[in-house]
């Protein structure tokens, strides 16, 4: 899923500082699954902002809403009747949400309440880790199911570098050295020769480096 963290209250309050009346809209997709932008989080954010504004002596009216997803126009359309009733709308979806909303309703102001971070999965209760960098040319089959693009701090195709120590990445004790894992796995499986071949330079043109991307299913286009 797409994982993000909520922006600080200070940053959000600054975004809405000139607003008297806002809508906070959450999303039942990824952000609900990673507990950052679902129904509960919308309610908590609304309360936190109301508390802050009351304290300032400038109370704010906040309405709450939850959309099935904010990445499909059909669901975005559900807000049509109400979206213009507010000074601004805060979206708690990933970065896609505020953009789809802004395109659908150009007359309204949409602010992101979330800093979208990565594609990842849950590795523990309340913990999510990055697993995919969206490079556009998946090569994890070459690395026994482990991805050096997203999980190596230097995205090395021929790692590990000299900074790998004790199974950890040089940048932090909280980051595992994926190359340590890849090498150990290959050694255990008796496939060390796989790593002796120099993997050629990656084609980054399929990743964000190549420009904004599009994905089309010809068989579905109308």
């Amino acid at each position, binding site marked *: 899923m797409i994982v993000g963290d909520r922006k600080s209250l200070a940053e959000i309050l600054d975004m809405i500082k000139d607003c008297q009346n806002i809508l906070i809209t959450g999303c039942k997709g990824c952000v609900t699954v990673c507990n950052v932008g679902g129904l509960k989080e919308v309610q908590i954010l609304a309360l936190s902002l109301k508390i802050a504004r009351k304290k300032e002596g400038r109370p704010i009216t906040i309405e709450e809403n939850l959309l099935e997803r904010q990445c499909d126009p059909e669901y975005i359309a559900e807000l049509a009747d109400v979206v213009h009733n507010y000074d601004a709308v805060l979206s708690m979806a990933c970065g896609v949400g505020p953009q789809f909303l802004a395109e659908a309703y150009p007359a309204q102001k949409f602010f992101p309440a979330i800093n979208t971070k990565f594609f990842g999965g849950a590795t523990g209760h309340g913990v999510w880790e990055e697993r995919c960098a969206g490079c556009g040319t998946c090569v994890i089959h070459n690395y026994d199911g482990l991805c050096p693009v997203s999980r190596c701090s*230097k*995205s090395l*195709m021929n790692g590990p570098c000299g900074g790998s120590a004790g199974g950890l990445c040089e940048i*932090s004790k909280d980051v595992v050295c994926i190359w340590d894992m890849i090498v150990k796995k290959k050694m255990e499986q008796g496939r060390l020769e796989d790593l002796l071949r120099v993997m050629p330079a990656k084609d980054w043109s399929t990743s964000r480096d190549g420009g904004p991307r599009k994905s089309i299913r010809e068989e579905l286009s109308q």
Partner: protein
Amino acid sequence: MSENKSGSNLEKVLRAGHFAFTGECGPPKGANVQHLKEKIAFLKGNVDAVNITDNQTAVVRMSSWAASAIAVQEGVEPNFQMVCRDRNRLAMMSDILGVYSLGARNMLCLSGDHQRFGNHPDAKNVYDIDSLQLISLARKMRDEEKFMNGEAIDVAPRLFIGAACNPFADPFEFRVYRLAKKISAGADFVQTQCIYNMEKFRNFMKMAVDMGLTEKCFILAGVTPLKSIGMAQYMARQVPGMDVPAEMIDRLKGAGKGKATEEGIKIALEQIEEFKEMKGVAGVHLMAIEWEHRVAEIAERAKMLPRPLV
């Protein structure tokens, strides 16, 4: 391992069978050409080539290619270092052509410390290609006279290609294979990370010799004299991939007040003596960081002088 690929002094020294001795110099944190020339002057005549570092530990300094060009002007042969962190493949090929045109003949291909360690941690990191791919690229440009995309180069750069080797990083069992990989990618010579754990290094060299690697590549053992107990402890704890045995730190402590530096030099000299006799070791790479003024003394005491003229 006979024909000169680049004609560099370092290459000629190694191919003639001499025990090579290289040094290191970090460019200034500014355009202080005067200071750079002073540092280079300390090394002139005392080493076969001088490594010119590339934004080492991700701290911004004068570019390695520019400092290398200045070294050439000063009559000292540079070993131009390039890291993968700051440049994409276009800039790398471009800089290789540039530095070769300005007289450099040796190149060291490195991954580079992550920018998080440096003084501009907010920067976007590049890592378009990794060190293995860079070694392959340098070889392709030299031997096939082609750019990465296969287009012909209008006067190809002929560099003596080097790589780094860290026998002490993890996973330890893999390190000799990684060296083998770098050699098969095109590394002509290798400089190791500074060695303190001699036992571990002896084991590593034995594996390298057994795998036939020392016949295909010149291995230079890295030596960094420990200037103080504080430095030894810092290296032991804070530098990733560094292995400093406790006995060595104890030896410095036991030397007595004010004598740690001399003891550190003694240790380095002992190491150099052993490296001269160690099978497969073709030379020593002395990393006397910010200590260039002591290199002549160390070279003298290690009986490395005069450097061979080839």
